[in-house]
């Protein structure tokens, strides 16, 4: 396939992905916003006013970047895992498998679909947060790049999950038993400086801590970790997952008998 044909194939997959999540917007775009409104009301307004400051900011200001990042990661992950698994389940993935479209284009198409949904949710949640707190961006380049890279990483993660999944149960196991605990323990609601030294060390093994803190640095200018470390980890994880998915698709894992 020539470069122009490859570009058309990529655009087709991406457009199909965007059309899919926009067609079912009450399922894909509304629930994260409602969930975040509840977080803002309960943790920010009701409980947060009794907690006081954290890292030099009001508790509401402090948790807002983490909440935005949490909604972005959840949306990016769930988009690719549900879309790719549905395509497997309905066997419509065969439309791509029998065509000459290269595997890396399939990966990019699905992954960027997840990124776009994550970013749309990020914008919606950010706009919603302005009803509850004021936000000023400390470092725009860090904010944008970290949110895009993190969304891409979670999109790829969703793709790996979907490739191995054999039933709809399998696509909810990882988000429920792995991602949600890691997110809640990843510094969204607190600074790890509040933890005893041992638990600070344990927390640093949680990759989501780096993403949340790097994003928080972009917005508030404070972070529990070094931002360069976060970028390096996320970039390495993206490359690793991309290579893994490419290998899985080449082998036909979960797709070809």
């Amino acid at each position, binding site marked *: 396939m*020539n470069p122009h044909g490859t570009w058309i194939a990529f655009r087709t997959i991406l457009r199909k992905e965007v059309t899919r999540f926009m067609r079912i917007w009450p399922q894909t775009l509304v629930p994260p916003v409602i969930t975040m409104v509840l977080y803002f009301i309960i943790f920010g307004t009701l409980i947060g006013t009794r907690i006081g400051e954290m890292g030099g900011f009001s508790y509401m200001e402090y948790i807002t970047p983490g909440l935005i990042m949490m909604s972005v990661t959840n949306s990016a992950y769930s988009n690719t895992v549900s879309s790719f698994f549905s395509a497997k389940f309905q066997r419509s993935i065969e439309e791509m498998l029998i065509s000459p479209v290269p595997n890396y284009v399939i990966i990019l198409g699905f992954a960027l679909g997840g990124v776009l949904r994550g970013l749309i949710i990020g914008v919606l949640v950010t706009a919603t947060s302005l009803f509850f707190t004021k936000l000023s961006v400390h470092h725009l380049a860090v904010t944008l790049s970290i949110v895009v890279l993190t969304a891409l990483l979670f999109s790829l993660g969703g793709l790996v999950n979907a490739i191995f999944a054999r039933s709809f149960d399998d696509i909810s196991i990882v988000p429920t038993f792995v991602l949600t605990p890691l997110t809640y323990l990843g510094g969204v609601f607190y600074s790890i400086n509040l933890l005893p030294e041992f638990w600070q060390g344990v927390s640093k093994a949680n990759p989501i801590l780096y993403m949340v803190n790097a994003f928080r640095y972009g917005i508030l200018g404070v972070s529990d970790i070094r931002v360069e470390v976060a970028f390096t980890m996320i970039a390495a994880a993206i490359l690793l997952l991309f290579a893994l998915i490419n290998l899985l698709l080449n082998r036909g894992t979960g797709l070809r008998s």
Partner: protein
Amino acid sequence: MEYTGRPAMNALSIRGLTKTYANGVSALTGIDLDVAEGDFFGLLGPNGAGKSTTIGIICSLVRKSSGTVRVFDVDVDENFPLAKSYIGLVPQEFNFSVFEQAIQVVTNQAGYYGIPSALAHERAEYYLGKLGIWAKRHEPTRFLSGGMKRRLMIARALLHEPRLLILDEPTAGVDIELRRSMWAFLREINEAGRTIILTTHYLEEAESLCRNLAIIDDGRIIQNTSVRKLLSQLNCETFVLDVDSGDEIDEVSGYSMRRVDEGTLEVDVKREQSLNPLFAALSTQGVNVLSMRNKANRLEELFLDLVGEEGA
């Protein structure tokens, strides 16, 4: 077929193809198969014989265990993307998104082959129109009837103008009127030069459409010849005669006859026998033959003989 000035080449060439699934089931035990460019080729066999596995390997949906597959002289192990671009597949099961509109299903497929949107829409209008579902283009596919879904899959497979069209049970569950219109369409695109490989359980369909065929059973090819040659192997045919005589009909020497009811007679006719003496003898008895037909499809009789022999 039109003379193109090119030397004839095989649209498909398979050598020593084997497939053993992870559960140990050996679906193909080393098949060799050639399909000439421009042919209308039938791949027949009972359920579980290995037809869909063979097609799956050709289209990259199933991994082969060993052997080679060449599509228009392109080895799939060396350049699968190019080989894939030559193939259009109409699978046995519906495999499109039930939430998409018919037009999206076909134009998306064109996109995967790198076809620009304007050209994809032009071809979609042509093929959906030819197959009689253009008016339904904006319907979500889940609302289409079974016959429409089958035609949608044919249109989708043709959007990139493949040189080789593979149809896996394309008329399963389709009513006879629609089936015949699909046959006419397939004949038309074959006469225009496109190679077609057809698997079907309707042997009347294979006999009507295919010039050559292979019968696969238990993972191996047990017959690979022209339909004409295969039919010439038929030793005996049973004809059903509609007659106007209510009286007793005497046996005609050399023919095995059965009176089914007052107006129906079944006669077994051997390959070397002519029908003229039979008609003459019946005429002498004052019996008029009003119409005549084969009791069973001829290919069906042979198929059952061949598969039965193999299984015995």
